[in-house]
């Protein structure tokens, strides 16, 4: 399946991927409105890890054998047969955080503002290029099928 890959050697740590992810998952999908007016703004589904000059965006690997799906007791975490994307249903989530415990990539975070919702990448639907890849100013993110 097509996955997002980070090229750490050209990640510039600007965090525009996080910003555009938030916009894409906001109600209005309009950047200024999402940040200035919408109060229930979601967390970004990916986040930039930094250590000194090295940085790169960490996001869900959408594992074939997704541990988070196996660990989820309510079925909130689900792997889509069609796109391969691992998605999260906020309505079913009870906030046990087992997904966070088992995630090998550390790609799931608690959304404390919204209570029990786990926040993670949903590949923006999985069909078109995800917005973080599309908007990365230095092409440090790619969306491709590496046969993994």
């Amino acid at each position, binding site marked *: 399946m097509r996955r997002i890959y980070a090229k750490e050697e050209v990640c510039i740590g*600007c965090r525009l991927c996080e910003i555009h992810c938030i916009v894409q998952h906001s109600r209005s999908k309009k*950047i200024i409105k999402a940040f200035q007016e919408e109060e229930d703004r979601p967390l970004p589904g990916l986040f930039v890890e930094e250590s000194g000059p090295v940085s790169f965006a960490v996001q869900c690997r959408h594992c074939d054998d997704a541990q988070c799906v196996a660990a989820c007791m309510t079925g909130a975490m689900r792997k889509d047969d069609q796109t391969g994307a691992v998605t999260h249903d906020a309505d079913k989530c009870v906030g046990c955080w087992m997904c966070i415990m088992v995630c090998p990539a550390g790609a799931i975070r608690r959304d404390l503002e919204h209570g029990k919702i786990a926040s993670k990448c949903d590949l923006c639907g999985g069909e078109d290029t995800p917005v973080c890849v599309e908007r990365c100013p230095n092409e440090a993110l790619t969306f491709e099928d590496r046969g993994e």
Partner: protein
Amino acid sequence: MTISYLTDDYEIVRDESKCIKCQVCVRQCANAVHSYDDESDEMNSDGGDCAACQRCVTLCPTKALSVRRRATEFRQNANWTGPVQTGIVKQAETGGVLLTSMGTDKPHPIYWDNIVLNASQVTNPSIDPLREPMELRTYLGRKPDSLDLDFSDGAPRLKSQIDKQLKLETPIMFSAMSYGSISYNACLSLARASQAAGTFYNTGEGGLHKDFYEYGPNTIVQVASGRFGVTPEYLEAAAAIEIKIGQGAKPGIGGHLPGEKVNKAISETRMIPEGSDAISPAPHHDIYSIEDLRQLIYALKEATNYTKPVGVKISAVHNVAAIASGSVRAGADIIAIDGIRGGTGAAPTVIRDNIGLPIELALAAVDSRLREEGIRNQASIVAAGGFRGSADIVKAIALGADAVYVATAALIAMGCHVCQKCYTGRCNWGIATQDPYLVRRLNPDVGTRRLTNLLRAWSLEIKEFLGAMGVNAIESLRGNRAHLRGVGLTDTELRILGIQPAGD
């Protein structure tokens, strides 16, 4: 210490109605112009060190930022202008030579803008380059005085031995920019784009990083006064060798790469200790005459077994024609001439702005002189120094150049906004810096693509020019000054340029 009397050159205008406080500007400015106060949840911008490089403006996702010249006006004065006063204040506070980078920003005349090109009408047909083949291929190097042919087998066979030539698919090369003055990724982009476009880039005097040896067939290596990184392998790896005598932005001045920029990779490539200043002397200490130059040219030819052209790069100075003639007679296969508008990674401002000749006049003078002396075929001429687009290039070729070198335009293609702060090593675009935080900002894949696009676009435009003039090969335009006319030039300027006034 008392306060500085300097005032800020630029100010940031932040449209609060658009700012989303995402702090991209904070993270992208190496000059620490922007900051975020989390106590008051406020974005602040202090124009102090703003170089107007446009990095924050370009990356701001809501277009909330603009950079403007600070509104403060110096009292109007035609002599004591703001920049003049600022220069004096800086020197009064530091006691130092004012440094700058890139080509001069003074309004030196750009003769290209006073030269117009010809086109075909009625009596000679123009050519549509989209429908008919158009030849831009250019060979640089020594051409024989005459061609001897052997007809003994019936079909003619070339008897003369032709010296090794550089084959360019377009008459545009990237001029010398050293690894050190620009980043690894910038060098890599130039090398890859040269390979893709079938042309050449020049290493400058910084040696050749081991990773770039694979681009050797598209590389011109420089031997400059500091001899940095010059080894048999370095010479062997290249397609051609260039002896750098001078640079348009700083004729008569050597180079200076500050120790802060000399990291491990650069120290290995230049063969100097890490952290030490890389100072190249003003002259080559083994070249004090044309005869000495001949010795070095032939030493390099011997060292490479006469397998590659050896060129000489000089800056355009008063006796440029005589110097070029001497260099050709000394054995140079290519003469590169760098005009007063040529760029640099670092130079004293007064030197950059006041020494040298416009490339147009120097090029015309050199081409005329070599023709008069009957030695024009012995060397190719490469013109450099502030070429802004295909029109300048076409005019230069008609004026007598075989090819041109471009560098500033290449940097702009990679993101440079000509802020003239290369010498600080804090290039926000990741080009003229070695800071590990900043160099990653130039993705070499992106850089290569943008440079390749630029070469392609200019080449297409050159073909359009040729078609309009009714010629189908750049060779038919080369040195053909009948295609040029001067507008608004004095008789003396027209005489030196060797062109007629428009209307004549």
